[in-house]
């Protein structure tokens, strides 16, 4: 544990955080505090009170490589120490280990990391079916967590993650980075302050998922890959090259397709822009076509319509949908005074010029965003560290927010699989009047890789 971290966490508690949340700056009301004791901030050459988090990476392929690059930069700035890297594939692990100049301890089994008392926080970038188990166990071992999106593959997994974060008083940030990205923020403040008037509909467009045009038979796993550990909570089955490394995305039980991948980004941004995180009840009706052959079973084309009440608005996922913008995917906010396009999720692409140039009206409500790094991947992690240092433990994409976003994705896939519309009661966390759907809100896990 870094020096002072525990004490400080309790000294600057959530009550204090909420108390200062009404602070005003100029004419605009600020949603979150900007008045933070200077001493808690770090800067080059001036270590903050809770500097040098000792961190570990669980899963270092794909997006995990970006996380490692980010942490190497934080390490260079004296803000973290990378103590360990972990991956179930020795080939991937070796590259990461060498990337740390052989300074981090390499592990195949993440549970060695959970045993280490000196590690404060973990970054999890394993396939989606691992997120819940590893996050819950990391929370239970007292570690703060940054976990890739989507938060979970089932609703019950997501609930367990929220409960674990709260019970163990740790910060769990989910990697839907747009909520700390400039483009999404500019769009958010413009939408919230009426650039298109009252928004009644948001439509997403996204290119189709791939189909496996060349199915292959099961084989032995490649040298260095611990297939049993890769499967983890999933039922055991023989290795097939169409599962991994990245293809898990196109398998329903592990990746959930585009809607659970990019949808987790886009829905997160949309809910933020509409200030709709509390609208947890909705109906969802999804249709789509899945590949006629091959291992991959997520929708190639998909349309999912979510209806929210009080206030009433519609969210439409289109794969491919109606492309209004210029790039591969994005969404449109349709208001009674016009519409505004957001390319991608507002992170890797800038906001629309109308949003960038938006002038806050008198009495307008400003939107808080951590703004420490231009690079939004770095900034999202800085936001996570900030929530730990400040002690409120509620980063921008706190696990509860991400669980709600993932619920949209997971229930759209469930509606697609069941071939019927679902009515979701967010308070009770159950599908109304559909026992079969409720049974599928969880998926049994294979011990010992289970919640």
């Amino acid at each position: 544990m870094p020096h002072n971290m525990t004490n400080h966490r309790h000294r600057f508690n959530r009550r204090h955080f909420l108390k200062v949340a009404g602070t005003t700056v100029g004419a605009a009301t600020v949603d979150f505090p900007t008045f933070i004791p200077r001493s808690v901030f770090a800067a080059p050459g001036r270590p903050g009170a809770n500097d040098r988090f000792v961190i570990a990476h669980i899963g270092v392929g794909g997006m995990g490589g970006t996380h490692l690059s980010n942490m190497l930069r934080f390490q260079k700035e004296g803000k973290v120490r990378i103590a360990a890297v972990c991956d179930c594939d020795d080939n991937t692990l070796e590259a990461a280990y060498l990337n740390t100049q052989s300074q981090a301890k390499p592990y195949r089994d993440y549970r060695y990391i959970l045993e280490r008392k000196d590690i404060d926080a973990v970054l999890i970038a394993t396939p989606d079916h691992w997120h819940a188990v590893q996050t819950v166990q990391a929370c239970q071992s007292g570690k703060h967590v940054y976990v890739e999106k989507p938060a979970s593959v089932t609703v019950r997994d997501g609930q367990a993650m929220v409960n674990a974060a709260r019970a163990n008083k740790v910060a769990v940030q989910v990697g839907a980075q747009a909520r700390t990205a400039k483009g999404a923020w500019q769009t958010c403040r413009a939408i919230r302050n009426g650039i298109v008037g009252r928004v009644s509909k948001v439509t997403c467009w996204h290119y189709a998922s791939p189909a496996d045009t060349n199915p292959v038979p099961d084989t032995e796993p490649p040298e260095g890959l611990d297939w049993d550990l890769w499967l983890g909570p999933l039922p055991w089955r023989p290795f097939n090259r169409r599962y991994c490394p990245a293809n898990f995305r196109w398998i329903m039980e592990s990746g959930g397709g585009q809607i659970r991948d990019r949808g987790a980004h886009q829905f997160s941004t949309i809910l933020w822009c509409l200030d709709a995180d509390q609208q947890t009840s909705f109906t969802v009706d999804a249709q789509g076509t899945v590949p006629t052959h091959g291992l991959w079973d997520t929708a190639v084309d998909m349309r999912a319509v979510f209806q929210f009440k009080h206030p009433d608005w519609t969210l439409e996922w289109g794969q491919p949908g109606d492309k209004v913008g210029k790039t591969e995917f994005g969404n449109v906010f349709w208001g009674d005074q016009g519409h505004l396009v957001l390319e991608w999720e507002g992170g890797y692409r800038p906001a629309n010029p109308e949003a960038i140039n938006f002038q806050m009206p008198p009495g307008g409500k400003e939107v808080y965003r951590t703004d420490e790094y231009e690079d939004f991947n770095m900034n999202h992690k800085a936001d996570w560290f900030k929530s730990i240092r400040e002690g409120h433990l509620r980063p921008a994409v706190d696990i509860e927010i991400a669980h709600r976003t993932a619920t949209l994705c997971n229930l759209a896939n469930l509606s697609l699989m069941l071939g019927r519309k679902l009515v979701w009661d967010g308070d009770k966390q159950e599908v109304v009047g559909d026992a079969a759907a409720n049974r599928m809100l969880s998926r049994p896990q294979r011990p010992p890789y289970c919640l």
Partner: protein
Amino acid sequence: MTANELKTTTLLAGAATALPHAQAAEAVGDLIARIKSADDLIRGPAWQGAGAAGAAAVKPLAALLTDANFEVARSAKRALYKIIRHADRPGATAEARAVETELVGLLNTSAVPARREALWMLSEIGSDHAIAPMAALLTDTEVREDARCALMRFPGAQATKALKSAFAHAPQEFKYALAESLRQRGVKVDGYPSQRLVPTRQTRVGQPQTN
């Protein structure tokens, strides 16, 4: 949709309900023939449109789960899931129970994939009537883990009782998994501590090279 596909779809929609036996059998026979096709353009739409085929198609489709052509086996499995998820819709209890009965029948087949898939399918559609025959497979070393997982999806005391009973007689190596299940369902279990947090896997990365 071709004329043949339209005919099959219409017949399948009736197969689960009121069609005369001969017509229903014809529809199922046609479905199976199309699932066995080597042509994706025939086999794909066949499994995707199989939802309404109902209980009558369960056994013939299950027989294809071990087909030498893995695409045929995969299509049969997906057709079965379409049937299950259609039959299990709200208000279709009779259809669901008919499908459940057929799936329970599969639990005794010699083909491991059929027993395994039947267990997972029953985890979605099974009622309490399926619990005892499913629990019987907790002693089947080939599929006992699937049986344990499938029973975990059943709410209520009966599945817990079945797991408890299996735990009492299970071989040592399977007791840990059953103990894990029972604890998740709020049952106190002596011994057989959880292995969830016990690291076991070693990497060769960063280790000194040995010749």
